[in-house]
């Protein structure tokens, strides 16, 4: 298993390097550069040239690429072109917020979706199952920004229960944290829950039709026991892998939550960096999102291995 982790790590680093390189060269194909973005309508040839040389944009691409790569190996992502602060500082101020949001949403989404998925798989086509299916599909197919807007309308504008904005900079107590995080976490987990519950149900239902489940029940195991202790471990791998993909959306797919709740996280930072052609920041964000994804997949694989005696002993 250790060799697997090592192999994954090496592959992971290679993937990160490929992604960052790709971002570097592809972003060169975007129209305009950081200097034009800063000066906008007011650009003159002289000011553009001056700004480009200050930013190092007048150097050949290959030189810039090499400098950037050298920096990364020393853990330095460079300086943001948009405002001149080190990329590491900018990321450091936003990454904890993103992790907090993703973490809390995971804590809500995993248990809820597992319980919903298992319960509906146990009694397929029951009223409960149909209701869960209906709500899951509703949550899945409603655009996320609409879900978030409706949540704000209901829980904030109409009832005044929670703040409409998630002003994390002003939070001082745990209670305050709960108040500002509830709505974004709710908005974010809803679509993930829908997706994960649907997948858990689908995977589990096929498994429940296997003869060994019937045998277990004939031997006197309750339906719950047969499902949770007998069938579930056998499908843990696929469920965890599918969940990892859904959970990844909690890190990189949350731009709508950040925009609607004014939550200072990483995805909005990345969107900003693209529109201001802030290459170093764009690359750092891409590397972080990619790393998050790789870690999730690695964890999913490890869990799948641990849940499978055949793989575990190898």
């Amino acid at each position, binding site marked *: 298993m250790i060799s697997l982790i090592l192999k994954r790590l090496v592959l992971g680093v290679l993937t990160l390097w490929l992604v960052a390189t790709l971002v570097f060269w592809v972003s060169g194909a975007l129209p305009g550069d950081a200097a034009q973005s800063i*000066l906008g309508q007011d650009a003159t040839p002289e000011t553009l040239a001056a700004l480009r040389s200050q930013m190092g944009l007048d150097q050949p691409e290959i030189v810039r690429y090499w400098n950037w790569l050298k920096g990364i190996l020393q853990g330095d992502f460079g300086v943001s072109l948009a405002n001149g602060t080190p990329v590491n500082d900018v990321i450091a*101020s936003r990454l904890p917020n993103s992790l907090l949001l993703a973490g809390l949403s995971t804590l809500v989404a995993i248990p809820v979706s597992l319980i919903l998925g298992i319960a509906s798989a146990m009694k397929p086509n029951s009223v409960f199952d149909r209701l869960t299916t209906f709500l899951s599909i509703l949550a899945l197919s409603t655009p996320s920004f609409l879900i978030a807007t409706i949540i704000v309308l209901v829980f904030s504008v109409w009832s005044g229960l929670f703040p409409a904005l998630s002003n994390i900079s002003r939070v001082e107590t745990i209670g305050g944290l709960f108040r500002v995080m509830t709505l974004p976490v709710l908005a974010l987990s809803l679509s993930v829950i829908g997706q994960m519950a649907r997948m858990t149900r689908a995977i589990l239902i096929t498994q429940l039709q296997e003869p060994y489940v019937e045998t277990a029940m004939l031997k006197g195991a309750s339906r719950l026991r047969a499902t949770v202790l007998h069938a579930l471990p056998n499908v843990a791998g696929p469920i965890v892998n599918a969940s990892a993909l859904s959970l990844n959306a909690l890190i990189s797919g949350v731009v709508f939550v950040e925009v609607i709740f004014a939550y200072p996280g990483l995805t909005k930072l990345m969107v900003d960096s693209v529109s201001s052609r802030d290459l170093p920041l764009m690359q750092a964000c891409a590397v972080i999102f990619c790393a998050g994804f790789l870690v999730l997949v690695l964890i999913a694989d490890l869990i799948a291995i641990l849940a499978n005696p055949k793989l575990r002993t190898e």
Partner: protein
Amino acid sequence: MTDFETPRLSARDMARMQQTMKRGASRRDVMKMLVASGMTIAAAGYTATRATTALASTPVRGGDLRVAGSSASTAEGLDPSKFRNGTDYSRGFMIYNGLTFLDGDLTPQPELATDWSSSNGTDWTFNLRSGVTFHDGRPFTSEDVVFSILRHKDPETASRARSYVASIQDVVADGEHTVKITLSEPNYDLPVILGTFNLLITPAGTTDFNAGIGTGPYKLEAFEPGVRSVVARNEEYWKDGKQHVDTVEYFGLTDESSRLNALRAGEFHLTTGINPRSTPLIQREENIELFVTQSGTFSDVAMQKTDSTVGSDDFALGIKHLLQRETIQGSIYRDFASIANDQPIAPTMKYHDPSIEQREYDPEKAKFHLERAGVMGQTVPLVASAGIANTLDIALILQQAGQEIGFDIDVQRVPVDGYWSNVWMKVPFGFGTITQRPAADMIFSLCYASDGAYNSSKWENAQFDQMLLQARVETDEDKRAALYSDMQQLVRDEAGTGIPVFFSNIDAHATSLKGLQPIPTGNMMGYAFAENVWIEE
């Protein structure tokens, strides 16, 4: 003529009317002007009421003001030379002062300069306020002014205001509190230029602007680009009777519906960038109000004179007659716009000439001109972006009008991303947006002079260029007004830009927020709300 004094007319309209009558306008001219004003005033009712209530109540001291801007980007900063949108401008007016300040009539008022004079329009003397200190305790002197103006001329500063200060040849200190400015050519609008956003005053020698040291009403406490800023009252401020609120928190919320929802939920007091389509929602709510400022901001459709298809005079006239101004005003802007006449001097601006005949939608004339331009039967591409004001909607209305006379416009949608650097002024037939400039000279030299940086239709007219220079040095107000009138007529008839409407700036605020008065240079009191508003609980 007293029966014209209806309460619907603003002071400015009244003044303009009197001016017109003094110039010997006929009764017919005045009637026409009133109609024009009536159209512009559909939205101005709010402005008038707001201004009156503001004057009626006494300011309350204290409270923490929270404001949500319409943009948030890591490219925000506190260096005036890089200021580029309302978020930057708002922070600028919290922290810094200018030499002058442009009031609701766009007239420069004394700010850090107490008075100024010039005998010939070229050599200027500005006397500075004494006893003013920066937030770090340093006294404000003429050296700071020299630094703050001259740095825009240095290409290394990469200032957005570089073209504004092009005619400034030299700025020298004459003692502690006097500055002499020399221009390369006479320009009586210098005090106006010195009141614009990018020319706010920073301490001499500043290299790191993120500390936010200025002479302004509030001191910087916290600033995170793209997230928020917090400022607290500067107790040493030189101006009396202002800075009513204790602190101001400013943050950006790019999504309009979340700005409105959060305002309705009472999360902040003031927000901006309201789409005219959302105004009915705000008018229904009890605890929030609209704040509308008539402005001279416009979107124009440009037809480049250098292009073989769209460059002919007939093509431009055809398109100008094809613009359904009333439809655009009503259906896109919900009447929060005033009808424009294919020239850039808005009714809110000095030297606007209401006697110039209003061009109307006229499909017959449009067809006549387009036929003469030889484009009937061809498909002409028109580039528009949904992200540039409401230009895509205007393009679609134009396309529709074209279809009715058998003229085919192919609306090509492009993303807003990179629009200003790659599309604007590059495509032969496309849209631009020009925000209100405080002086007629500024907008004419920028957008219609042959060498103007924003001459988007590549229009070259020697007569216009000559009149522009003449007006700049003309000291006789009447002659100057006459020159500007002729220039408006010339642009309306010959330039390659169709200007359908001037749109209003729409903000929304909690009813508890008082003291806002319209200043046409931008939203939220020309972004100078911070020191002027108060919260009445």
